């Protein structure tokens, strides 16, 4: 599901996706998809992710503000 975040990033106009470090390997496909689509979106990894109880919840941000959340 993580590569699908490429679609969500475009929909929300996100410039950053924040996710748990445990998703780093899965996110490689997303990085490729973003590059293929020409989207300038930074991937930020934090130890537990943006939602403390569920590491599969990611945040999509624009200029630092949360514009969308996805569970992957």
């Amino acid at each position, binding site marked *: *599901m*993580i590569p*699908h*975040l490429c*679609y*969500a990033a475009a*929909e*929300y106009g996100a410039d950053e996706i924040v996710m748990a470090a445990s998703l780093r390997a899965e996110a490689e496909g997303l990085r490729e998809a973003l590059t293929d689509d020409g989207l300038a979106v930074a991937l930020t990894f934090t130890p537990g992710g943006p*939602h403390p*109880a*569920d590491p*599969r*919840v990611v945040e999509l941000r624009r200029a630092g503000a*949360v*514009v*969308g*959340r*996805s*569970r*992957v």
Partner: protein
Amino acid sequence: MRSAITWKYVGSAVPAANTVAGVLDALYTLGTSATYYDGSARTPGAGQAGTWSRYQNGGVTEAVYYTPVSDPHTVRHIFAGQASGGTKTPTMASPDTSATVTILYGLNRSSGAFNAWDNASPFTSGSFTGYSRCCALGTFTLAKVHLYECSVGHAVAFATTTAMTHCIAGDLIDAGTDSATSPNSAEVTTDGRYVILVNGGTSATSNAFWSLSSTTANPINHNTGANTSCHAYVLSPGGVTLSAILNTFLASTAITTTLQVNADGDAAFRQMVDFRSGGTWIGRLREIAVGPDAKLGQTASAGATVKAYAFSTGPSTDSDTLWLLA
């Protein structure tokens, strides 16, 4: 084999307005009804009748949530949304994205008290699937909302005068004889339960869905497209990781009109089975059957006894139908 469940048709309600609040209020009205469509008594929290609750923000309904009668895993089913201009950012189940003027649907397992519908933990604790879009009111002018229920789940149809989209969810899979006696932890919860979540997506559900393909608008098939597509998932045992499912039938040929009746012309209801995307067996859908074409809201009876309810994709014309067995 798991014990048979009994479906009932609560009835239909006309939304006061084609808005998120109007549609959610209609669903809440049905969910708290003291009678079924036929006038028989209905007691929320008993028999087949689930318990429905409502969240209002300044008097405007933004969420309704449902608890099935049989609920050992404290699953909460939540429908929610916001009007145009709303700025809340609910957690969505990838690949769907949030939208206003749209009914969203999701499941929470091991739930605590209701928190906030747009919080990443809408029920304070447990695990949340994230929402999928199930009805876009900007393109769907609803004539009626229909509610069906059993002790472990529900089926909701959001119907225009000529089309519908839908949501079906609950403990609605029988994984087979093994699951009741020696559950496989990789397959089902330790008490043999499987929870599915089906969202029709924002496209009208196809009224000719008896094909084996995973189109964007089949009633219990998954399509990977975002937002407009039908999503059908099974939840991981005890958790909310979603695996796509595809339905198929106990016949290898197309479900023709001829094959929907017996030699006497009586309706023949055949149980449906589900597979994971990729082909692994999941189980049979509990008391959800293939049968003859019908209209949404119709019943099939033997004499005065209702045998099944038509969860049809056609509100006004006979169309392909999931039959919910009484």
